[in-house]
């Protein structure tokens, strides 16, 4: 039972053209002009988070484009009553080729901002009424009327470069200066442009520009076979490999209608938590570095390295790659149970000692408390996800809210703090480290016997959603398969949601605190740019 889908059915009876339920996903194809009202109601009245918007080119089969608004419907307390809901609601509208526009929902649901602009660039469908209709993914040198995700755009196309200009927002006034940072940065990180407007040290405005390394990953998915696509998914965001590949595999397994063996579900869970451990340690090390707490940084990096070496022993890869496949996992880890337990129990003690020292240090506290605050309403409006959201009082975690793999069988807490500053984000990660160790220990002690994979050969046509909670937050794959090939693969990396939050987090902070704020949000360029 889902109260949210019931309410949509009741309130928009005459607007719904057809309905299709598949597992936890409920698809409503609705009249084009009703989409904004339905999204508005789902978001504002039912408190469903808008987790993605994406388009599909259905011109060949159905003679139109289709836009999908993806909402997450979860149990929640409203007016002192728990609403029963669990699943995803997908609102679909059809767009005719000769009228390639749709009504923007961004002014009602701010989280729609980048998705609508992405659709505009990749499909040439115009979000009418969008408050910021500039290009997002395609840069100004990309020729007009060239839309990479349309089916008639050949993957080998080498578009001619044209001249164009991108306009940044401007803050003007006496003593206001712009500081331009990037796209090329000093460290070995990826490219992104940050344009600060400052009056003295405090930041008045920050505008970010990304997608310098847009690689056309979604187009690439449509042009490779399923067994190869697994390895592409694994490499979209280098340090969130497992979360990505598992989300992809889960989507395909749902379409194929297969339940993977219980042992594989547990192995996947262990891998996903190992991934969280080394990511969180890396982030804590980075924050310690940026506040010049060199001792803490060195020890956090040492602990991260210990997990990476453990990963190598367990899977043959420091970044846990090559383990997942459609239908389960490729290698068993049963004989590694003891070494994982031993290492983790020592790791837990060392980590606790380090955190006690880190949080007791006045020089650390001075730099991270009240720094880079993201207020709850901003985080909610932008649909910030993962530890960054949980540090701003948003109690969401895909592992608990939409359970997958072995998570339904395991006990864990979801740490939530309210302050929304760098301190809260660091503490949420630290608390999650203990939970992850607990999850791995439970999974190891209950590891079921049996196979680690089942063979999935022919996959009938269909579509489904795969989701995981990556170290950075909710990761989504919407996959559509036709004739045993990928017709569409929409990837939603957590950083695509979280990047815009940095524009708010830095306001009223001083420029030297930007690196810490940036690190505390742990944003991926690669996962965002795709």
């Amino acid at each position, binding site marked *: 039972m889902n109260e949210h889908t019931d309410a949509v059915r009741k309130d928009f009876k005459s607007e719904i053209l057809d309905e299709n339920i598949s597992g936890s996903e409920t698809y409503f194809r609705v009249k084009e002009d009703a989409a904004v009202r339905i999204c508005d109601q789902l978001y504002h009245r039912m408190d469903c988070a808008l987790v993605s918007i994406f388009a599909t080119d259905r011109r060949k089969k159905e003679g139109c484009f289709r836009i999908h608004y993806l909402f997450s419907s979860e149990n929640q307390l409203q007016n002192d009553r728990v609403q029963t809901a669990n699943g995803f609601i997908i609102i679909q509208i059809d767009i005719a080729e000769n009228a390639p526009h749709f009504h923007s929902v961004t002014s009602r649901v701010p989280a729609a901002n980048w998705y609508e602009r992405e659709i505009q660039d990749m499909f040439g469908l115009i979000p009418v009424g969008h408050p910021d209709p500039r290009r997002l993914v395609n840069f100004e040198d990309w020729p007009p009327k060239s839309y990479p995700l349309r089916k008639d755009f050949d993957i080998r196309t080498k578009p001619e470069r044209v001249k164009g200009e991108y306009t940044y927002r401007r803050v003007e006034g006496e003593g206001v200066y712009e500081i331009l940072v990037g796209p090329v940065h000093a460290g070995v990180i990826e490219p992104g442009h940050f344009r600060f407007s400052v009056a003295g040290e405090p930041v008045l405005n920050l505008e970010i520009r990304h997608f310098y390394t847009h690689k056309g990953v979604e187009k690439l998915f449509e042009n490779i076979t399923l067994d190869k696509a697994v390895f592409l998914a694994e490499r979209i965001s280098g340090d969130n490999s497992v979360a990505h590949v598992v989300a992809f595999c889960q989507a395909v397994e749902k379409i194929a209608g297969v339940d993977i063996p219980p042992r594989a579900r547990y192995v996947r869970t262990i891998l996903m938590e190992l991934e969280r451990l080394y990511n969180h340690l890396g982030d804590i090390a980075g924050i310690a570095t940026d506040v010049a707490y060199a*001792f803490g940084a060195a020890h956090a990096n040492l602990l991260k390295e210990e997990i990476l070496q453990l990963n190598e022993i367990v899977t043959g890869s420091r970044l846990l790659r090559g383990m997942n496949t459609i239908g389960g996992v490729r290698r068993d880890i049963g004989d590694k149970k003891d070494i994982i337990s031993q290492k983790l129990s020592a790791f837990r003690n060392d980590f606790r000692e380090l955190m006690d020292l880190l949080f007791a240090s006045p020089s650390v506290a001075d730099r991270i408390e009240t720094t880079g605050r993201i207020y709850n309403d901003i985080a909610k409006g932008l649909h910030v996800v993962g530890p960054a959201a949980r540090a701003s009082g948003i109690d969401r975690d895909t592992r608990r809210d939409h359970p997958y793999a072995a998570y339904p069988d395991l006990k864990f807490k979801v740490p939530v703090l309210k302050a929304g500053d760098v301190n809260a984000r660091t503490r949420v990660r630290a608390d999650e480290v203990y939970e992850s160790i607990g999850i791995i220990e439970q999974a190891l002690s209950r590891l079921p016997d049996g196979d680690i994979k089942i063979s999935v050969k022919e996959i009938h046509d269909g579509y489904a959603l795969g989701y995981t909670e990556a170290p950075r937050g909710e990761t989504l794959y919407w996959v559509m398969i036709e004739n045993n090939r990928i017709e569409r693969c929409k990837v939603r990396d957590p950083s695509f949601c979280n990047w815009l939050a940095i524009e708010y987090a830095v306001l009223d902070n001083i420029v030297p605190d930007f690196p810490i704020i940036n690190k505390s949000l742990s944003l991926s360029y690669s996962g965002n740019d795709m």
Partner: protein
Amino acid sequence: MFDILKKTLKTGTVTVNYPKKPDIAPAGFRGRPEILSDKCTYCGECASVCPPGVIWLEEGMSEKTLTLSYCGCIFCGRCEEVCPEGSIRLTQDYELASKTKDALLTSTSRKL
């Protein structure tokens, strides 16, 4: 401050003496794939499943050649998984740095 010193002393030296002392990767490591020439039947199965496409089979007039480039290899081990003869396998070797791309090619061939 005292706690920091205590932890520092307790931790001691953690760096290793690499490369003076070789650092051997654990068993099961996904390292440089090697082709066992005597077993290869040149069926091309590995070439067809290789995700980055860095294995290729050439059939000339007088010989067949199977070539693998370590340049784009992602060490996924699909070649090892599908090879019916067990003639390609991942090794524990990770020291692959080279000054030329040609040095990163490995191949086996058979006269027809």
